[in-house]
């Protein structure tokens, strides 16, 4: 390994011993050949389906009846703008984004700062960060549904010990929304913590030493060294969490099935119900196109930076 490290700063572009002209063509062909499977899969699973999605959103396509699908133009989009359920689900989804993204960033940052302290035995802290991350989201939904159970849940048990009357968390629209948000923050904060932890470990210790010599206290160090240097990691985490929150499905599906009275239903859940339960593919596609468009806007913020860095 030492020899590898020594030659680490050699340029990565190939500098073949052979004359370049004899290599460049076949290298280019090989590059295309190696990238081809990825592009074929991408075309099959992403590009064609997206085209199909946009097309289907213009049809009154139902998989249930034997009748043919007709071209209806923007009718599905007009319908969904007038659909009270859609408006409600859009507001819920927006609520999840606005509440769970900052929530998960704050909790994740705190978890990472504690995990980054010098612990002699590291694995318990790491397990505590990695287990929630690796758990399927639907599992955390089930676990939190059990936590928030009205009669036998541990949350109400703790509340009782502090003299608070038990709350029917999953039966009240407001509390159910809060419970789903808490479950989402719990699940998402571990992902944020892992990204922030990786960012923390790239901050050179010398910076803190220099700051301490200058008499900076803990808070000043955090404010003027840690936070600015973590900004890129936090930005990445924020973008990925926003995209995930826009697609919230698993946790409310497992916890409340969207209820009570649609209080926790999201756009992603509406897409699933319309497509799979009602087999109304046209309408579901129009919903998916709208959600896709919003995610795309968020992604573009991020992609602009990546593209600039890749070309720099």
């Amino acid at each position, binding site marked *: 390994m030492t020899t590898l490290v020594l030659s680490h700063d050699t340029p*990565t*572009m190939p*500098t073949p011993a052979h004359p370049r002209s004899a290599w*460049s063509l076949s*290298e*280019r062909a*090989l*590059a295309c050949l*190696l*990238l081809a499977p990825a592009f074929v899969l991408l075309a*099959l*699973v*992403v590009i064609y*389906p*997206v085209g199909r*999605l946009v097309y*289907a959103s213009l049809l009154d396509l139902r*998989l249930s009846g034997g009748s043919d699908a007709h071209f209806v133009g923007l009718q599905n989009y007009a319908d969904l703008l007038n659909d009270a359920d859609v408006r409600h689900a859009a507001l819920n989804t927006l609520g999840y984004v606005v509440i769970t993204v900052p929530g998960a960033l704050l909790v994740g940052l705190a978890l990472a700062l504690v*995990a980054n302290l010098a612990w002699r035995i590291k694995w*318990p*802290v*790491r*397990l*505590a*960060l*990695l287990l929630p*991350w*690796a*758990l*399927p989201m*639907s*599992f955390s939904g*089930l676990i939190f549904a*059990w936590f928030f159970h009205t009669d*036998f849940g*541990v949350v109400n048990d703790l509340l009782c010990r502090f003299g608070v009357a038990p709350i029917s968390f999953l039966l009240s629209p407001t509390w159910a929304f809060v419970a789903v948000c808490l479950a989402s923050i*719990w699940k998402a904060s571990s992902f944020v913590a*892992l*990204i922030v932890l*990786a*960012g923390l470990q790239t901050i050179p210790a010398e910076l803190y*030493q220099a700051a301490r*010599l200058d008499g900076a206290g803990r808070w000043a160090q955090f404010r003027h060294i840690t936070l600015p240097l973590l900004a*890129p990691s936090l930005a990445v985490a924020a*973008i*990925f969490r926003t*995209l995930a929150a826009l697609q919230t*499905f*698993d946790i409310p*599906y497992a916890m409340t099935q969207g209820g009570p009275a649609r209080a926790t239903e999201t756009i992603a859940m509406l897409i*699933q119900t319309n497509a*799979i339960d009602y087999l109304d593919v046209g309408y579901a*596609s129009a919903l*998916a196109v709208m*959600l896709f468009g919003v*995610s795309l806007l968020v*992604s573009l913020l*991020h*992609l602009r930076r*990546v593209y600039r860095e890749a070309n720099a």
Partner: protein
Amino acid sequence: MNTFSLALPARPFTRPYAGLLRWSALAAVLLNGLFPAAWILLTAFKNEAELAQSPITWLPAHPSLANFVHAFRDQPLLQFIGNSAGVAALSTALTLLVASGAAYALARLQVPRRGLVLAGMVAVAMFPPVALLTPLFEIMRTLGLLNTWLALILPYVVLSLPVCTLTLVSFFQSLPPELEHAAMVDGCTRLGALWHIVLPLSAPGVFTAGLLAFVNAWDEFLLSLALNSAPAHRTLPVGIQLYQGEFTFPWPVISAALVVAIVPLAVVIVLFQERVIGGLTAGATKG
């Protein structure tokens, strides 16, 4: 570090509190990360009668394995596990195969419009899978692939491909190209050099990428719910939903099934934590 802190002005007032604060912070992190799983574990050993007690008990009064027996008998839990393991393993293998080829091209060969290809990779990494739900359902229905492993493997490979490719690109770039050139002077082809030199030397990166792909496939819910809904073809996260009836929630049995599903995950994490922590964010922070 110790000698260094000796040179600093002592802060006598904060010392005792700092220790207390530190340990309570640790306790909070551990409680946050491990209590939910621990609570499910405790629930799994309680019987129905004990569960319906008010106030609730924390430790099981008469611990028994009955719930685990029920978990396997009431639903095809073994089949769920088999489906999850099969789908996750096959999609991981396919992802690694495709990603290492693409990553090698991006790291070492002259790829036209490299920046655009990389940005495209990141774009796919951020793609919302829910947008694929209806078209994939239609496609798989037409191809007769609903309720087969292949229906899930194809989308899972694509969803993990970008992160794995980006992770592998950074690993390949950290290797000196001289090693491959030496092998090629000795008569090895480019692909031979990739297989015999680059991949073995990047084993940690390949492992990390594989782990990410595996966890992605193991956890996926929405597509699995839509494409493989027949009970015998369900993966674990979707299958566990079957334990709940229309109005009944057999929490002890659900808990037992969850424990069966979570324990292998926890063991893998403890064994390979270093790798996961190190590699998890490579793709994301790079991107």
